[in-house]
């Protein structure tokens, strides 16, 4: 932990700290593997559909085109409608990543906001907010997400909102405990005695110290959000227009691809999910070891 110094010094040190964190991450075998996996998936998601665009309407002409094994014209075979699985997988990457990232943004913003308020204002506000947090922490996530998605519809926007608005309690808890310990520090007390406003103290002095922890947590939440989306979509609650990896697996399952041994249909989207989630998990796990003060003191 940086010595309790002045804000100016801390900010000029932020760049150096970020650099140090990156070096630690890249120096760790697991962290480096995670970064490489993520760069790979990111490139596939961005470039893949440009080079191999997927046309959901390009269905097969006859029954012969359905669930065909890989061939020269269809590198990963065809699905139950005779569409190209390789191209579908590439375009699914975008949807899965998009949902994961946007849902996480909502979770983190909500969690950080609630955590900072609860940690900074002890008393009824804190205990009230924490009661709500604990309530959502004990409610089993998947049944809740299923109920919400089933009730409010199957569009990408709804799915992002539902996953985002159920994923914040963990972040809120972590941020609160960190803010709670920061606000008792000497340097915060000194700054307050200068007459700094609450907004200034939180914005300039508390947040910069909580950010590293939020960052590590964010990376792990992304992994969870992508898994949530995949599960929801697999259960038939995905957006039928924007086909994600989970939606592909739903149709693979419903059309009986597993029983018919059409491995080329259900392997690629699943491998995609595992690679992305593993990438974020490895990076998040390593960042947590580097940035979490509780783990670092060991």
């Amino acid at each position, binding site marked *: 932990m940086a010595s309790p110094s002045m804000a100016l010094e801390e900010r000029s040190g932020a760049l150096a700290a970020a650099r140090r964190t990156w070096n630690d991450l890249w120096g760790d075998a697991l962290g480096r593997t995670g970064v490489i996996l993520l760069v790979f998936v990111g490139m596939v998601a961005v470039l893949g559909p440009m080079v191999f665009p997927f046309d959901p309407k390009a269905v097969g002409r006859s029954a012969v085109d359905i669930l065909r094994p890989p061939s020269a014209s269809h590198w990963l075979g065809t699905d139950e409608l005779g569409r190209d699985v390789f191209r579908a997988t590439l375009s699914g990457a975008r949807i899965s990543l998009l949902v994961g990232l946007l849902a996480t943004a909502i979770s983190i913003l909500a969690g950080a906001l609630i955590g900072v308020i609860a940690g900074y204002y002890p008393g009824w506000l804190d205990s009230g907010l924490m009661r709500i947090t604990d*309530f959502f922490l004990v*409610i*089993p996530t*998947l*049944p809740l997400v*299923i109920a919400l998605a089933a009730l*409010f519809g199957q569009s990408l926007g709804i799915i992002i909102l539902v996953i985002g608005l159920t994923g914040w309690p963990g972040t809120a808890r972590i941020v609160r405990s960190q803010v709670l310990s920061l606000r008792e520090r000497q340097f915060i007390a000194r700054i307050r005695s200068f007459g700094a406003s609450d907004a200034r103290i939180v914005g300039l002095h508390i947040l910069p110290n909580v950010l590293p922890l939020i960052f590590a947590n964010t990376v792990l939440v992304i992994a969870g959000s992508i898994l949530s989306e995949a599960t929801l979509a697999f259960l038939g609650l995905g957006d039928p227009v924007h086909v994600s990896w989970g939606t592909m697996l739903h149709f693979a399952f419903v059309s009986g691809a597993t029983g018919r041994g059409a491995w080329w249909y259900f392997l690629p989207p699943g491998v995609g999910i595992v690679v992305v989630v*593993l990438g974020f998990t490895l990076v998040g796990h390593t960042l947590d070891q580097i940035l979490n003060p509780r783990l670092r003191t060991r």
Partner: protein
Amino acid sequence: MFRPRYLVRKGVQLAVTLFAVVTFNFLLFRVLPGDPIRLIARSGHLPPGAVEQLRKLFGLDQPLIVQYGYYLRNLARGNFGFSYTYREPVADILAQRMTNTIVLLGAATVLIVGLGVGLGVLAASRRGTRIDSGTVVSALVFWSLPTFWTGMILVFVLGVWVHALPISGITTPGAIYSSVWQRISDVARHIALPTITLALVDVAQFVLITRSALVDVLTEDFILTAKAKGLSHRRVIWAHGFRNALLPVITASALYISLVVGGAIQVETVFSWPGMGRLIYDAVLRRDYPILEACFLIFAVTVILANLASDLLYQVLDPRVREA
């Protein structure tokens, strides 16, 4: 063992949380867009008189607060409403389904706790070795697997390819058993794949938590003392180390319940296991809200009770918290 004041506080907390969950559940399923009458009738073309009659029958002509009163009264009587698709009381449908889910989760939990604690202790006691890093990496990889996809892979490899195990249902359809044992062994063969799927994915958390808790404890002075006394490695690890590493593991088991409930929904869907998870999947596809509502409530209450149990267990095991 417990102070009365602590128990009273916990009891009040439990009552408040349960009340909140019930209310949340009620409101969640009342804000849904669309007319419930249409969902019950499964058709938009009803004579106006019939609509009014149904509305009255289900109490939907009453203000929300009165409906809430009915809802609480019905819950207290074990009445979970009437399924749109099965045309049966939800409570009747749930009874058998719940048993099947409990059997599946019981089997999986035994496997997960045993395997998770065993591997976690193994990794921690060989800290820094290949065994340790191998265990951690495998745990992270398995943690990243979607449960439903792992199930699909196992169906393909062990069910379709090798034909080693049945891939669907709880018993062989149409089977006639000559004895109870034959029936049990049939169920055991059917439960194998769903249980293995759940264990593969959900064991990771237990491994990582057990490992890190034990790694922490093993740096303590009393471990050094135990070693200096000349105790065997096994005794130091289990009797001195693991006993003290139990607390974080207990805390994690409350989270585990929430996790495994989600896992059950996925695994039961893939393997057509006739439990609550499969029921939820079917209810989602057919928009059978009363069933969804009841299942959500039951899962939520289960997780809340599991949290309470882990809190109480924590108190029993850690004398330091008991006084607080």
